[in-house]
């Protein structure tokens, strides 16, 4: 399923969401897996005060030739993993292009202060309009069923690996999960497998 060659070099993956959703952890695990798959990779995260409830974007550049210490160029995303719908749209607006594919967790996180959030169906339609292929994964809902909304990012990780959009094999992700989670490995593996399953039903 997974590909070893890149359509573009550098190949740009964006993981976006809202501060607190676990962007940094997710992007580090994806980056490590890509390194283990033999790629040059750079993961540029949002840290510091911007993490506090603001929009966060991790830029992951995958290459055979260079390590690029830089963010995605305008209009140059290849894959966008959106942990939140309007954040997905925000990033599509900047980095999208006619060949971009997206995986989206459609659960909104509302901005504070009663700032109006657009109608969710309208957001979904807009995402579909701007991506050549979109897969919606109800990660938060599934995570809440598991008893902790924080599993949403591991579910999405499973979906990303299962999508075949990236040259990452399941086998190279499992040891990374094992190393990261230790005592809480079982539910995280369950979440990961759930994500792999959900993407197939799309």
């Amino acid at each position, binding site marked *: 399923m997974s590909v070893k060659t890149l359509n573009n070099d*550098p190949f740009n993956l964006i993981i976006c969401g*809202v501060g*607190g959703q676990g962007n940094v952890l997710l*992007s*580090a695990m994806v*980056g*490590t897996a890509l*390194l283990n798959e033999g790629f*040059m*990779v*750079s*993961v*540029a*995260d*949002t*840290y*510091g*005060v*911007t993490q*506090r*409830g*603001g929009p966060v974007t991790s830029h992951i550049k995958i290459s055979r030739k260079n*390590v*690029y*210490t*830089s*963010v995605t*160029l*305008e*209009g*140059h995303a290849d894959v966008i993993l959106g942990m939140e719908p*309007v*954040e997905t*749209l*925000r990033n*599509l*607006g900047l980095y*999208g*292009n*006619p060949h971009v594919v997206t995986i989206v967790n459609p*659960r909104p*996180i*509302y*901005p*504070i*202060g*009663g*700032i*109006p959030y*657009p109608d969710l169906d*309208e*957001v979904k339609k*807009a995402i579909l*309009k*701007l991506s050549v292929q979109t897969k919606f994964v109800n990660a*938060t809902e599934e*995570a*809440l069923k598991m008893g902790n*909304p924080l599993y949403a990012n591991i579910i999405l990780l499973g979906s990303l690996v299962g999508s075949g959009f990236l040259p990452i094999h399941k086998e190279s992700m499992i040891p990374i999960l094992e*190393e990261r989670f230790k005592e809480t490995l079982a539910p995280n593996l369950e979440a990961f497998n759930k994500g792999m399953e959900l993407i197939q039903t799309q």
Partner: protein
Amino acid sequence: MENIAIDAADEMFLLMGNEAVARGAIEAGIGVATAYPGSPSSEVLGSIAEVAKKMNIHAEWSVNEKVATEVAAGASFAGIRSISVMKQNGVNVAADFLVNLGMTGIGTGGMVIFVSDDPSSKSSNNEEDSRPIAKWMDMPLMEPSSAQEAKEMVKWAFEVSEKVNLVTIVRGVTRISYTKSNVILGELPKKKEQKAYFPYTWDMSNPTKSKLTSGPFPVLHRPLHEKMEKAKEIFEASPFNQYMGSKNPELLIITCGACTSYSIEAIEELKLEERVGILRLGTTWPLPEKLVAKHLNTTRKVLFVEEIDPFIERSVMELAASLLPATSHLTFYGKRSGHLTPYNEQSTDLVIGALTSILNIKYQPRDHKYDRKAEEVVKIVPPRPINLCPGCPHRATFWAIKNALTLDGRNGFLCGDIGCYSLGLSEGGFFQSRTMHAMGSGAGVANGLGNLRQFGFDQPVLAICGDSTFYHAVIPAVVNSVYNDSHFILIIADNGGTAMTGFQPHPGTGELATKDRARVIEMEALCRSIGAHVEVCDPFDLRNTTQTLLRLMKEDRGTKVVIMRHSCELIRAKREKRKPYKVSVDPERCAGDRCGCDRLCTRLFQCPGLVWDRENEKAAIDEALCVGCGLCVDICHQKALVKEATV
């Protein structure tokens, strides 16, 4: 990375720039590492501290950057290699010591400062460029362009430091510090018996030959310049300075740091490999003038790409002026010409913009039709202001401050400070902070405002600081206020750690950088011994906290300290692993917009866990975000918010 001291030379790992700096220092055989936490530099000391015992390193979170630098210098004086780490603001704090250290020189142990600047102020209150300090104080300066290079450069910086007997500065930026990428590890240092010894010889008759330390500084100024000449010679031959491109490029980019990557990528994207060359400087002060002059001779156009100030740009233009008329054929582009800006983070896109403008070429980042569609469709995307986390005790503190100031009614105000509670400037902190400058400046400025009574000043003055900030720079302001009889209330928002930068311990937590136990320096006792009136509140007790502030404002005299003590929710959640309460909305009691509260909980209170249910037109709890702190229960006048203990 979990174990930065792994014995795995030649193996490749995904390392954050800050971890690579830590690894470089360890490979260099440091004995001492010091820092005060500050994004984007915090993870360097954190990573070293985790392996400090194993590697026989003394790693400490120092109380501030000046002390951190002094502690590191102490090690150097006794022959031990040391590193001190800080963000750009920290360099200012350390500056007074550094200017004098430059004069005396260091000891026999190499000493390196790693400073990380924050272009676009992503986690700072300014975007100061720390590099001019190297020029100002005569210190060799280097700038890595990737995590791998950060590791190699830090290692080499110790050698340079020892060769020229000066502190060497390695300057990163957010993008270098916080980007994770492939790094090949080097050898760990060989175990050796190091005996620290301070040879405090001082020969008045021959100060320049004396190892250490104090003395008639004018005598030492000339040798300092000689040391910098020596550094320049070393830099001329440094492999960290590289040229990439054709022999006679139409345009030469001179760049450094993260901008190296932006320049390479821009040239690849525009396919300008034949027309544009890159001279990338790893050593940026003193400028390797011979090398630069040689390259200025190969081209007619020069573009400078760097963050933040035009630092290299000015140095090179100064050099070019000194070489006239041999350089009269050159046209310079960069921040001075307006092709790039002396503010904000740079990017590949911005370099593409500069190149297309100078070379008059067209570039379209994406399909036209898509571009128009995207522009139209994203109009529905709402703004998302940053905010305090759900369950954050600062929300309670700011709520109490807001209500107390309103009830007092004398136009009282709050002076802000640096930390998560900097959000007091924004909606998350109800716009309560009216000033914000440096670490500890809230208390200092409040001190000044509280001492203007002879001019008819009669507004109540409050200042806020965090627990870590208190130890860093607020104590002198409290001493000053008591001594000079100023009148203000200092609120210490004590959440039990340095939350903003990753929960580092401080002198009040009872824990060291290495996680060993430490003596607790109690802020209450300290403030009382200074002579301030001290009270302690739990900000989650909103009524009592508000009343305490009101009462102290009415008393209207002297230096008062209110410690608002409640654990950071992120620290609490890690420790307790469950929510204290299950919070819900009683739909019978919530009258929605008919209530008249103007959506107090979902609009004004600014907690992400409280949301407006459009269907039922009532408040609702977002289960995915609510941490069950229960604070909101006390703000609803209709008692429509309900909490139920989880045990």
